[in-house]
């Protein structure tokens, strides 16, 4: 059973007062999630007792650190059902995962005239690396549109996927609309024209089961800090044969097998893509986060968020002048984005903050999406494993106060 009170007790920050006498109501997990005690303790324990550099020392601590670091890789691989741990590359965040594929695979494989298909609902992380590559390589970027309800125009896939498409890179869950996209269907459509498929899983891996084999995707990227893990680390999953054929991304220590004054021979997977001393404590923290989430059960987390989201969408829709973005119903991940007639989102967020309510206001790193909607910004409340209906009630009461301040 999903014991919400026990789960809330796992997160020390939830008892914080953000101003004197004002407790935190944290509704910004989609930007970055809070951390359960087990994650903090795992990292603390590592730094206190077993820290050393990995992969090269012969001493005891180095061996322990290496075992813990590589153990985290195995945990993550199992978490996303990757066939082999060497298909899990530790990177800085999902953004770096996209950059790695753009620079390494893209430069080695793309020629002028080739096309990359993205969607109109992508985060800047899945736009800008391809825009840099497009300018450098003379390739064309195309964007699959979204419909007015914030779902992808799937009926137009055939028009946008052509024999020139080399890669289709799309988000599994929109960070603005909350739309849960049909990943397998999109991957299959890409493969049908001979293109590769890359999934931005930053907003899906923390919230629902992930199975890269079930998705049949070629690459998938996500960030640790949105899934109870620390900042500074993320994951790029890639199919082994693709990763093996790709040139290194960043050069330096750990990614080499041999270096001479004339050149170098790269290391094997996955280290080929992990230059320099890696994010050891962060990987261990991520491993602990994965264990924590698995303990709750990803299906249970998803069910919990579905019911909180339904509650929130219902309550928010009753506020006069409030316009919800994104699809209704069950194809909606754990967030609610909205605008409030007559009030700028920054003013909304600022007034809510005075009541301890943390939401996001702005373009959420999706400026083209907002441009397409004809708005400069929106407000977003996002939910996670610990969100309770009482917090949604606080949000709704806060939004009524916003309307009062603005004399609406």
């Amino acid at each position, binding site marked *: 059973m999903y014991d919400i009170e026990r789960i809330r007790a796992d997160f020390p920050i939830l008892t914080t007062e953000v101003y004197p006498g004002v407790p935190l109501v944290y509704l910004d997990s989609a930007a970055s999630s809070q951390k359960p005690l087990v994650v903090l303790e795992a990292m603390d324990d590592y730094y206190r007792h077993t820290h050393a550099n990995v992969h090269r020392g012969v001493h005891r601590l180095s061996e322990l650190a290496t075992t813990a670091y590589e153990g985290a890789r195995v945990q993550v691989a199992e978490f996303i059902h990757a066939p082999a741990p060497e298909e899990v590359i530790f990177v800085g965040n999902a953004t770096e995962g996209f950059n790695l594929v753009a620079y390494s695979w893209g430069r080695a494989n793309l020629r002028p005239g080739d096309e990359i298909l993205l969607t109109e609902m992508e985060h800047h992380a899945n736009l800008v690396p391809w825009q840099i590559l497009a300018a450098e390589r003379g390739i064309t970027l195309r964007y699959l549109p979204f419909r007015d309800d914030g779902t992808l125009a799937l009926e137009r896939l055939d028009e946008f996927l052509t024999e020139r498409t080399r890669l289709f890179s799309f988000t599994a869950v929109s960070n603005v609309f909350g739309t849960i996209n049909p990943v397998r269907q999109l991957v299959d459509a890409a493969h049908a024209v001979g293109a590769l498929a890359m999934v931005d899983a930053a907003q899906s891996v923390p919230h629902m089961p992930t199975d890269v084999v079930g998705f049949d995707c070629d690459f998938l990227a996500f960030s640790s800090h949105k899934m109870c893990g620390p900042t500074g680390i993320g994951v790029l999953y890639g199919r082994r044969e693709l990763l093996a054929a790709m040139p290194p991304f960043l050069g330096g220590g750990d990614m080499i097998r041999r270096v001479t004054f004339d050149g170098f021979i790269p290391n094997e997977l996955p280290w080929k893509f992990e230059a320099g001393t890696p994010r050891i404590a962060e990987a261990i923290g991520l491993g602990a986060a994965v264990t924590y989430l698995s303990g709750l059960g990803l299906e249970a987390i998803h069910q919990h968020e579905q019911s909180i989201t339904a509650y929130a969408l219902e309550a928010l829709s009753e506020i006069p002048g409030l316009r919800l973005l994104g699809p209704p119903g069950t194809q909606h991940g754990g967030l609610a984005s909205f605008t409030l007639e007559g009030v*700028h*989102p920054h003013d909304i967020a600022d*007034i809510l903050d005075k009541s301890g309510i943390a939401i996001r*206001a702005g373009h959420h790193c999706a400026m083209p999406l907002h441009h397409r909607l004809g708005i*400069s910004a929106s407000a977003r409340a996002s939910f996670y494993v610990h969100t309770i209906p009482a917090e949604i009630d606080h949000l709704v009461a806060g939004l009524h106060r916003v309307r009062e*301040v*603005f004399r609406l």
Partner: protein
Amino acid sequence: MDAGMYREQIIDLYEHPLNYGHLEQPDFTYEEDNPLCGDVIRIDVRLDEQQRVAEVLWSGDGCAISQAAASLLTEEIKGQTLAEVKAFSSERLLELVGVPLSMARVKCALLSLKVLKAGAYGIPDPSDMRHHE
């Protein structure tokens, strides 16, 4: 809870901005946005023979703080010399806004001043010794 930064004057100015619009033939005009929140402000200024602000209008879109600050700023610089406009301090504008602002919101409040100065520095001013272009 305290929403004190949204004192009455700020909301009044948000609803009924001062000096709002475009000038037909400004001596300088400048527009800039704050990409963080999408606020955008344009300021048009006409100077008289003594290089004083004869007319100033602003236009734009954004949060209550940035919009109210633009009204307060344009009201304040009427009759000021170009040199005074260039020397207009951030502290003075925050004083005019008159409410405590978090770090993120200070940028909103100062957007109009940034726009004004970028415009003002774009035109030559013989009395301004620091101007070397």
